[in-house]
C-alpha cells in the first residue's frame, strides 16, 4: 500500500491504468445489476398472493429494503475491520477504508430506513414502527453520523485516524446489543429465541420469483457498495496526498 507522501513509492502509471479500467468494469457491472434489479422488482417478481391493492403494490419496496440493509451491514462490518487493522498496523490506508465504508454504509442505511418507513404506511398505516430492525438501523445511522462528525473535529491526521477507529469499535459493538434490546423492548412476554417475529415482515408468502429477485437485490447492492467504496477510498488517498504535497510546499 502506498503511503501518503510523494517521496515514498506511488503506484506506477500502468498499475493506475489497470486499476482505473478495473473500476470502470465494476461500475458498469453495477449499473447493469441495478437495472436488472429494477426490472425484477417492478416486473418480474410476481405480486404477493395474500395481499391486495396498495399494500400489494407497495410490497415491491421490500426488495430494495433488503438489498440496502445487506449493503449497509457489509459496510459497517468492513468499518470494524478497518478500525481494528488500523489500530494494529497504523497504515492510514485502512483508516481510509473505514471512513469510506462508513459513508457508504450511511447512504445505504438511510435507504433502508426510508424504504422501510414508506413501506410501513400502506402496510401498517403508520410511517414509524418501533420494529427492532428499523430501530436498530436508525440508531446505527446516528452512531455512524456521529463518527463522521467526530472525524471532522480533529485536525491531526494520525490522531483523527486513531480516535475515530476507537469510536468505530465501540459503535459496532453496541449494534448487536441495541438489536436485542429493541427486540425485547416491544414484546410482552420475555425471551423470544426462535425465529423472527412474524409481524415484522408484513406477513406475505415468499414465492420463487420473489426469492430470485431477492438474490438479484443482494448482488446488485453488494456491487453498488463495492463500486462506491473503491472510488471513495481512492479519492481519500488522493486527498491525503494533496495534503502532504501542500505541507511540503510550505
Amino acid at each position, binding site marked *: 500500500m502506498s503511503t501518503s507522501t510523494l517521496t515514498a513509492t506511488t503506484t506506477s502509471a500502468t498499475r493506475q491504468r489497470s486499476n482505473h479500467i478495473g473500476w470502470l468494469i465494476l461500475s458498469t457491472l453495477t449499473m447493469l445489476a441495478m437495472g436488472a434489479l*429494477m426490472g425484477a422488482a*417492478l416486473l418480474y417478481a410476481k405480486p404477493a398472493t395474500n395481499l391486495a391493492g*396498495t399494500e400489494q*403494490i*407497495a410490497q*415491491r*419496496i421490500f426488495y*430494495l429494503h433488503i438489498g*440496502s440493509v445487506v449493503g449497509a451491514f457489509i459496510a459497517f462490518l468492513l468499518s470494524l475491520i478497518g478500525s481494528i487493522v488500523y489500530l494494529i498496523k497504523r497504515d492510514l490506508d485502512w483508516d481510509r477504508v473505514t471512513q469510506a465504508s462508513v*459513508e*457508504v454504509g450511511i*447512504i445505504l442505511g*438511510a*435507504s433502508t430506513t*426510508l*424504504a422501510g418507513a*414508506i*413501506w410501513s*404506511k*400502506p402496510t401498517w398505516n403508520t410511517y414509524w414502527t418501533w420494529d427492532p430492525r428499523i430501530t436498530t438501523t436508525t440508531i446505527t445511522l446516528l452512531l455512524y453520523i456521529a463518527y463522521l462528525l467526530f472525524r471532522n473535529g480533529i485536525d491531526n491526521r494520525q490522531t483523527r485516524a486513531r480516535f475515530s477507529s476507537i469510536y468505530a469499535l465501540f459503535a459496532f459493538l453496541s449494534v448487536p446489543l441495541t438489536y436485542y434490546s429493541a427486540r425485547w423492548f416491544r414484546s410482552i412476554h420475555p425471551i423470544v429465541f426462535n425465529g423472527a417475529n412474524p409481524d415484522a415482515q408484513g406477513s406475505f408468502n415468499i414465492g420463487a420469483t420473489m426469492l430470485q429477485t431477492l438474490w438479484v437485490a443482494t448482488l446488485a447492492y453488494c456491487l*453498488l457498495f463495492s463500486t*462506491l467504496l473503491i*472510488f*471513495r477510498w481512492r*479519492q481519500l488517498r*488522493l*486527498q491525503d496526498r*494533496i495534503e502532504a*504535497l*501542500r505541507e511540503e*510546499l510550505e
Partner: protein
Amino acid sequence: MTFLAAAFIGLWLLVMAYVIYLGQRQGQLEQELHSLEEAMTDRGRQ
C-alpha cells in the same frame, strides 16, 4: 402506487446525491492537484 414510486425515487435520489458529491469532490481535488503541481514546477525552476 405513489408509495412505490416515492420509495424507488427516494432511494435513487439518495444514492445519486452521494455519487454527485463524489464527482464534485473529485473535480475539486484534481484541480487542487494541478495547481499544486504547477506550484512545484515553478518552485523547481527557481
